[in-house]
């Protein structure tokens, strides 16, 4: 079986700069100006037209190998592709099918699963959300309690997921469920694929403090799923989910968001008439250096990715510094903007939404406290 659209050429044979220019030209020409740097996660009805274009062009899965319909980019080229998207302020759609489901199916899935699920992901007809967190299981994810009972060749799933990003925009969900309550907590978990239209699934969007409905609660009441939808062994889910922590972790620490924060802060300084103010200049210079040195560290990790070396636990540093710097920049922008910083009109139209946007990244993707635990243990070798 062949997947997706054939590639125009062998991208990895191109020089880095040539490839970068091709990607840049495409993004600059086709991505709608109005959708650049949108400070919230967009739904399919907002940016789906452009992503459908990418799918038709064969550019929807830059990280997938050619045989599965991807662009087959090596790590260095993939880095360029993603950097160019960030540079142009391209907003992600609900792309977890491409980021997570595909790569997991290459590694853990069987041929039948790949045939069933990959084409829908490549065409964007299927959009996947991630059912991991539960009301009682956040940082301690392995304590999750959503129950999956085996009945013949089916699983019957009952429980609740929460903080599920864009579940209301998803057609499918991949989820971790408790398959063996008697086993040690990491060893009794399964990784299952569900359709959101299955009877027993109810989605309730949660409004966030920015006024958006980006994450949701997902209730599962006796949802029936064929055993054929389990990826890996029935109690292997934790291992399956963990295997995805590859070099993608570098992107959680990309300098692009704090760089955008600096642009917003520069605008806030101008709007507040504070250009040249000594106290503001001092803080602004500090933030610019914080971001400069973030990009210097990012470049060090990127060089490792380009050389094909695995990233170690030290990459957590990028996430901590990028997200906390972004927050500090936006907090300062609000602070110096006075009344403009608390209304969503005038200069505040840019400041307030970007401030809100700066808050979640220290929590998701493994909270910064968890990242510090990892560094203390695995890099600094402090006693546990």
């Amino acid at each position, binding site marked *: 079986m062949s997947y997706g659209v054939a590639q125009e050429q062998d991208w990895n044979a191109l020089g880095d700069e040539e490839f970068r220019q091709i990607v840049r030209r495409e993004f600059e020409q086709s991505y709608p100006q109005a959708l650049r740097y949108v400070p919230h996660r967009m739904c399919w009805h907002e940016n789906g037209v452009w992503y459908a274009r990418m799918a038709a062009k064969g550019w929807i899965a830059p990280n997938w190998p050619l045989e599965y319909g991807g662009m087959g980019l090596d790590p260095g080229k993939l880095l360029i592709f993603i950097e160019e998207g960030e540079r142009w302020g391209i907003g992600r759609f609900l792309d977890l099918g491409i980021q997570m489901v595909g790569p997991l199916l290459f590694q853990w899935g069987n041929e039948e699963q790949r045939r069933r699920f990959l084409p829908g992901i490549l065409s964007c007809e299927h959009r996947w959300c991630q059912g991991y967190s539960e009301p009682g299981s956040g940082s301690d994810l392995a304590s999750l309690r959503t129950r999956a009972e085996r009945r013949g060749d089916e699983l019957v799933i009952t429980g609740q997921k929460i903080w599920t990003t864009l579940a209301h925009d998803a057609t499918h969900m991949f989820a971790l469920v408790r398959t063996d309550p008697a086993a040690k907590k990491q060893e009794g978990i399964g990784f299952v694929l569900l359709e959101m239209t299955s009877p027993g699934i109810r989605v309730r969007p949660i409004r966030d403090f920015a006024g958006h409905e980006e994450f949701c609660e997902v209730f599962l009441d006796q949802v029936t799923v064929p055993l054929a939808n389990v990826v890996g062994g029935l109690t292997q889910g934790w291992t399956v989910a963990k295997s995805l922590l590859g070099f993608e972790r570098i992107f959680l620490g990309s300098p692009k968001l704090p760089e955008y924060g600096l642009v917003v802060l520069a605008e806030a300084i101008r709007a507040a008439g504070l250009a040249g103010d000594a106290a503001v200049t001092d803080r602004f210079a500090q933030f*610019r250096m914080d971001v400069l040195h973030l990009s210097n560290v990012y*470049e060090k990790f990127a060089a490792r990715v380009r050389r094909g070396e695995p990233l170690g636990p030290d990459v957590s540093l990028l996430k901590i510094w990028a997200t906390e710097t972004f927050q500090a920049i936006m907090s300062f922008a609000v602070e110096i903007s006075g009344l403009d910083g608390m209304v969503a009109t005038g200069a505040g139209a840019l400041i307030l939404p970007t401030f809100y946007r700066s808050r979640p990244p220290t929590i998701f993707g493994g909270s910064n406290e968890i990242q*510090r635990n990892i560094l203390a243990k695995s890099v600094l070798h402090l*006693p546990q």
Partner: protein
Amino acid sequence: MSVDLQTLELLRASVSRFAKPDPAAVRALRASKAGFNRESWQLMAAQGWLAVGSDAGEEGALGLSAAVAIARPLGYGLRSEPFSQAIQASICLADGGPTAYCGDVLESIVSGELVPAVAASPEGTCDVVLAKRGTSGFVLDGTCRCVEPGNADAFVVAGLSEGEPALLWVQGASEGLSRHEVAAPDGYPLADIELRNVGVPFNQVIATGAQAQRRTLKAFDGALIVQSAELLGLIDRVLELTLDYLRTRRQFDRPIGSFQSLQHRAVDLWIQQQLTEAAVTSAAAVFDAPSSVPEQRSAAASAAKARAASAAMTVCNQAVQLHGAIGITDEYELALHLQRALRICASLGNSFLHRRRYDRYAPQPQVAA
């Protein structure tokens, strides 16, 4: 790894062997007024380590990246030899090709015979020296503040001659030159140099006009990066001491490093070390790139110094806190690092000054258009 990276790694390793921390020796120097050991300076010269400043910025040279590879282990080992000052003087003398006399001077710096100090800062940290042009040379009048090392054999002095900058080589034994020595927190000798009718013959003029300005600026930026590398080495050592302490010191029947609040603080110090390392490495690369313009060099150098200085102070202060009372004693090695950090941070400008300088030279943030 490219050949260059390998060379730099070898260089770093041999300096590390030379510069193992020896707190007793550092304390003895601190009490001595000498500031540094002339014999070890000769050893460093014999290794060729003092030559890396004179080719910095030239194509094919290891340049400032080599100076960084040397300075980091020097900082780690609490060495006080005037390495950054020698690099600064060498760049002043060598950049753009030295005159015959300056070539000889450069030789004697590289061979370790002559210890130089630089009293030429583009940021006005030393006072103005007036240089009056006479028939056989310039006559200097003025004061240079906190020159280090104060016991240098000769000085690179920036003077103003009818509003035009001039860079001059002044012998320490010149008539009319007097030194008022003060000790830095680490005992290192600083001196206010007073110049009263000091004659400098024309052949000791290093450069004038725009050339003088350019050399002063470039040497200053180079020295900032070398200082930052020294501070990075100091941070390496203080962090190592602190992590060892957290792993071994026991209270409440467990190692204190098992407490999460202390772990997270240790991680934040390590992050500062990582940022400093990246800042120093990339500033040296910017300095060495033939395509870099002066503004880029100054922005990168000031950013590196601002980062290294604030990181060094944060790491030292937190290290004291994490050690508890032992951290306050003079007997423990930490004290020597704190005192050293105080000097190097302030010398050529601390983080406050360099944030302002960075702001002047760095581009404004913008999105792709």
